[in-house]
């Protein structure tokens, strides 16, 4: 007990005596923790967004404009029998027209009362990768290599894959660049911390030398330094978490109603995130000071 309080006193004394290196180490921990705190949810967000888009991949079957109610019923039955089809939704000419007009009223005003849109079936495949299999099943290959739809009243079959692929690509790029940026920042912070600790140790190498000469064991010398790192790491981590909490309250919670993307149900909860961050900041600080000390203790 005597010893613990002695080490604690030594650590606090050393922080007080070296305020600038201590502040630098604290800032380094704070920045690392902030980066991790933003980086972990951001990557999850990007992952979730990509998964979302993949779920939205559909196959659209457009009827010819002259298709009758009977044709629609026949094609629908045919579609429902096709393999890999999970769900078929029929969107009539009129419904499609109303939808589009709502999205782009000016263009449709110009068209007047003419409805150029065909009846459409929106098919959800059982798996995002089976879209092309459905399309293949709805077409027959002619002798000249040309494909024709299985039903004469089907105009064309398209997978909304092009747009989907783009979204997946973009989220992938975002994820990659976020990952690179986050990785770089974490590496920079770790270097900064170890450098700061090394500097503060270097300025005290004489002190360490004297301690060794009067017969201090390595652990007796090490503990105050490690404790110092732990204290700085904890303060830095807590400050970062407070900042993150404020950011969550002021920015994210306000946006939640507007952009559903920002809050996902499978995203990490704030509580566990904090636990991870606290452990990370304390661990980095303790490991940093412990490792830097190893070299200096070989006097």
């Amino acid at each position, binding site marked *: 007990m005597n010893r613990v309080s002695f080490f604690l006193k030594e650590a606090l004394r050393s922080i007080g005596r070296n305020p600038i290196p201590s502040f630098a180490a604290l800032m380094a921990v704070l920045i690392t923790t902030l980066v991790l705190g933003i980086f972990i949810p951001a990557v999850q967000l990007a992952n979730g967004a990509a998964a979302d888009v993949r779920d939205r991949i559909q196959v659209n079957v457009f009827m010819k404009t002259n298709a009758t109610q009977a044709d629609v019923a026949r094609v629908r039955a045919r579609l429902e029998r096709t393999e890999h089809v999970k769900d078929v939704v029929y969107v009539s000419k009129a419904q499609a027209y109303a939808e589009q007009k709502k999205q782009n009223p000016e263009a449709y005003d110009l068209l007047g009362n003419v409805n150029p849109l065909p009846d459409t079936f929106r098919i959800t495949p059982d798996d995002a990768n089976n879209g092309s299999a459905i399309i293949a099943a709805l077409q027959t290959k002619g002798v000249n290599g040309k494909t024709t739809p299985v039903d004469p009243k089907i105009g064309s079959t398209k997978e909304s894959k092009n747009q989907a692929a783009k979204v997946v690509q973009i989220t992938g790029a975002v994820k990659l660049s976020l990952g690179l940026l986050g990785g770089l920042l974490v590496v920079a912070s770790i270097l900064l911390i170890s450098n700061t600790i090394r500097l503060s140790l270097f300025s005290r190498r004489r002190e360490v030398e*004297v*301690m*060794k*000469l*009067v*017969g201090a*064991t390595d652990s*007796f010398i090490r503990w105050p330094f490690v404790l110092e790192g732990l204290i700085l790491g904890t303060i830095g981590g807590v400050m970062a978490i407070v900042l993150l909490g404020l950011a969550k309250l002021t920015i994210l919670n306000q946006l939640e109603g507007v952009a559903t993307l920002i809050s996902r149900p499978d995203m990490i909860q704030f509580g566990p995130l904090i636990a991870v961050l606290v452990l990370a900041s304390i661990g980095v600080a303790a490991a940093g000071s412990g490792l830097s000390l190893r070299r200096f203790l070989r*006097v």
Partner: protein
Amino acid sequence: MATQRSNAARLRQAEGRADAPSRRPAAERPSHPDAVIEFRGVTKSYDHSNAGVRDATFSVHRGDFLFLVGQTGAGKSTLMKLLLKEMEPDSGLIRVAGRDLSEITRKKVPYYRRNLGVVFQDFKLLPNRTVYDNVAYALQVTGASRKQIRQQVPDILRLTGLSTKLHHYPHQLSGGEQQRVSVARAFVNHPPLLLADEPTGNLDPDTTIGIMQLLYRINKTGSTVVVATHDEGMVNRMRRRVIELQGGQIIRDEVAGGYGAQPTSESTAEFGALLRGEPAPAPQRRVRRDPDAADLFDEAFSE
């Protein structure tokens, strides 16, 4: 291990009975298992041309006051560093209190060093601690209790004449005072062996005498004291044992001024007078005190 130790103890006892203080040169002196320091053919070189110490053989007995003299680079500091186990000899054997230093593992070195008091030319005080804390640190290192520290530190500071400077920082003290703090720190554990490497190199003659008197007083409590210095004039006036080094080799090992002239004991004042080169004041002979517990190395590092 245990039998070895008891053997050593028995030998020590036997030696205590038979051995009248035999102050012959080291070369003729048989090696005693209880010699506080024993060097046998110790060589340490830094590179091919530059020999730190070459084939050094000597021993130092309990309660001795020994001067190591020689010019800069003669090997005095190398000897000190070897004794501190800051480095290892290339060849030869070093024993301290009968214990072969090469047997002490890296982990045990701190425990070994607690049996040594060390004083340096540049004081090596902790700059951001007060006089009191500097001295207390040497005790804290050994795991001494707060009560022990509160008792021992003021005592030793009184002994070294620093009672009024308890809460000063090293930079607020004169060189002589800083060296006193350094001596106080070295002696607070009452080590059986005190090493001083050019303790007065940075001090003026009067302050030098004060520090040397302090070391002498410590010697009189039974601690063996080894002082490295290049101040030959002072050494020759003092009529103590001198080992002179040149280029890493021992070229002289004798009692300066002749053995016959050596008084068995003198008071600190007489010692100071000797240092100043004055005729000694009326001799006040004292019975040489028996060595006490502080003379014996504690067993901590021999475990």
